[in-house]
């Protein structure tokens, strides 16, 4: 390409304390192209984007815009040159309307802005009601609002941080069509993701990040997902083939027309949920988070009591109004989606976190804690589940998401439960750890445990589960045989196109 790159980074570095988040990163993005930044969690993608968008300033290295060296002291500097960013966790204000949200960033009268929002929506397939309150919008619609808000500033470069992580498959299709139209309009797009198939489908060039450094610049279309993954994690992908499940045994969990009114305005009412789970099988609940997942997990774990005892049966006992401890005594274990706060107490050491659910493993004697047993248990968990930590005294809150998840899962597995509920097992966990976690769950299944997995990750559910349900607006679909269904069909359930 003869003209200078729209954006060029030369040996950009950033360090936080002892962590080198970015090391001498080189990157070029041209107008009219979609460039992928690929990397695992913790590889330095987010830091890099913050540097480009002016949220943080690099320690060393240069940023060039249209061939000129630039310094961004704050996001508005980057915005004024024409850089727009769509955040992974949306930066919308829920109590305001779409137009009000847009007007916080884009100058203009509300009526004019509303018209522009509608026009842009028609042009790029981003339709959304300008006067709707944001808290009433679906996740896909919110993302459209974010993109529209960026586009109204006429950016030359649009950065999207993990834009598909929250979308059902149909919305991903739609987003990609929008991005291709923008590309055809001459816009440069920087697309950050760890999902290999998406990058191969959408992008012409990709920079692969690992441990804060660029480990490769490739044309993703010429590589298969496996070799891209290898670049990303720096070693061979572990084998993901698993033994077929044996026929399931006796029933361990049963939900009988479980209904529960929502606890808050922003919650979800659960309606008439039926589910059966037997030993030696993994059943998955797919669906976009916020459709009742948290409510359902709280009801099964006992954090919320059901309205009638018979609505929930564990090991054949009516447990609907028993507390979490009583349910655990029956052989139930639970890995919640919030690791900090529900799965573990951030300020406490790993050893004390073990005590929270494993106290029945002779950790108590006449009301006193037996520290040696507590430590031994924790040590065993750390070794057996490859938790990377200085030791049992490390604070839970100081660990990375993947490591903490391995610890929490390990702690629950070491209780040898007969029934497990695992919610979002690999959220924010890197590929290596995620693969290990899935293998552990399958091992548990083969040993006869009954496992219910709630997850947003379709691939994960198809890899592990023999039966799938979809949770949409508080209603659970009938069980679908994983071998007979497709991600597309599940996707239709996820957006409520079929019930």
């Amino acid at each position, binding site marked *: 390409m003869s003209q200078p790159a729209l954006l060029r980074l030369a040996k950009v570095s950033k360090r936080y304390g002892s962590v080198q988040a970015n090391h001498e990163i080189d990157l070029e993005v041209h107008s009219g192209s979609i460039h992928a930044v690929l990397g695992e969690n913790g590889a330095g993608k987010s830091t890099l984007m913050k540097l480009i968008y002016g949220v943080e300033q690099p320690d060393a290295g240069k940023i060039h815009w249209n061939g000129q060296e630039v310094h961004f002291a*704050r*996001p508005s500097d980057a915005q004024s040159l024409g850089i727009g960013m769509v955040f992974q966790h949306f*930066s919308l*204000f*829920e109590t*305001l309307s779409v137009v009000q949200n847009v*007007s*916080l960033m884009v100058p203009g009268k509300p009526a004019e802005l509303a018209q522009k929002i509608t026009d842009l929506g028609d042009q790029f397939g981003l339709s959304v009601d300008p006067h709707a309150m944001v808290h009433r919008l679906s996740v896909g619609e919110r993302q459209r609002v974010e993109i529209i808000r960026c586009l109204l500033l006429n950016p030359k470069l649009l950065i999207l941080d993990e834009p598909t992580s929250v979308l059902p498959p149909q919305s991903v299709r739609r987003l990609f069509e929008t991005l291709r139209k923008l590309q055809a309009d001459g816009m440069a797009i920087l697309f950050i993701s760890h999902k290999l198939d998406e990058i191969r489908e959408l992008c012409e060039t990709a920079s692969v990040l690992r441990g804060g450094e660029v480990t490769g610049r490739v044309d993703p279309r010429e590589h298969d997902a496996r070799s891209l993954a290898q670049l990303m994690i720096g070693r061979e992908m572990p084998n993901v083939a698993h033994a077929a499940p044996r026929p399931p045994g006796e029933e361990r969990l049963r939900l009988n027309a479980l209904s529960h009114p929502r606890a808050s305005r922003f919650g979800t009412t659960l309606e008439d949920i039926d589910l059966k789970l037997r030993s030696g099988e993994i059943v998955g609940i797919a669906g976009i988070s916020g459709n009742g997942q948290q409510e359902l997990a709280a009801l099964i774990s006992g954090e919320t009591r059901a309205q009638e005892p018979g609505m929930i049966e564990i090991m054949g006992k009516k447990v609907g109004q028993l507390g979490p401890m009583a349910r655990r005594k029956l052989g139930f274990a639970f890995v919640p989606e919030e690791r900090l706060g529900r799965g573990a107490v951030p300020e406490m050491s790993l050893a004390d976190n073990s005590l929270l659910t494993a106290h029945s493993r002779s950790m108590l004697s006449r009301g006193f804690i037996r520290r040696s047993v507590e430590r031994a248990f924790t040590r065993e968990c750390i070794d057996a589940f490859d938790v990377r930590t200085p030791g049992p005294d490390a604070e839970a809150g100081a660990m990375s998401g993947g490591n903490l998840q391995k610890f929490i899962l390990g702690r629950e597995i070491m209780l040898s439960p007969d029934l497990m509920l695992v919610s979002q097992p690999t959220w924010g966990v890197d590929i290596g750890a995620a693969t290990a976690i899935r293998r552990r769950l399958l091992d548990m299944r083969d040993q006869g445990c009954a496992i219910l997995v709630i997850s947003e990750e379709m691939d994960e559910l198809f890899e592990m589960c023999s039966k799938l349900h979809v949770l949409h607006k508080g209603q659970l679909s009938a069980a679908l045989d994983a071998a007979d269904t497709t991600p597309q069909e599940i996707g239709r359930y996820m957006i409520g196109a079929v019930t």
Partner: protein
Amino acid sequence: MSGLEFLLAGTLAAALPLLLAALGEMVVEKTGLLNLGLEGMMAIGAAIAFICVYHTGSHLLGFVAAALISTLVALLFAVLVIGVKANEVAAGLAIGVLGLGLSALFGKSYESLTIKGLPKIDIPGLSDIPLLGQTVFTQDIVVWLSIVGTVALWWVLNRTKLGLIIAAVGENADAARSIGYPVVLIRLSAVSFGGAMCGLAGAYASTVYTPLWADGMIAGRGWIALALVVFGTWQTGRVAFGALLFGILSLGELTAQAMGVGLPSQVLSSLPYLVTILMLVVISRRRSDLI
């Protein structure tokens, strides 16, 4: 003057310190902070204003000085909370205590001294209305300005971009920062505004409403104002309504005498405080139903 006339004439003035302090705190809370030091900021403002008016005779100077000193105290709170990330509750209580202490210190040698209040201003036309004219529509200049200011504040918060920005910062500071708003500056300004309003509230109490210095003269009005913000669900109109309601209550004994209620005066003087507690209980119950 009959009891009813007394009520009509006195309510606005009695409500004014509560109104100003509560509106200031409302703006602070809208940006996502909580400053519990209202009582102290009002007290130091009251002391400084009284001293200023006593020596210069200028009420304007008194109000300006009070606003400045209370802003300074509020900025100390901002430095603690925004600057060094101290606990909000502890920092608010600390500057509250500091304000009370300073007010007692500065006011020591002025105990029981008096100054002249402000003249009442008639509104031409309205003042000729029977009963209301010489009561409700005869107020000092500060009351009239505060009514205009309250409407202006409503307009800014609900009809302008600045109001939108304040709401945005309060709802999600991280998001506001990421789209490029100077969150720290906005919060700093809000805290300063809250401080200045408390200063004005204190100044009105000590130089106009009761133009006499006595230690502890704010008498819990800062806490009532704090409760009023919650009572008013962070809406200008409702906060103003709440302030009026408490204005009537704080006329306590006199009100009751006017109505012919024969309760001991101690019970009557504690009425505003009892109602504050009651109100907070009712509101928190209602709020937990909503959530």
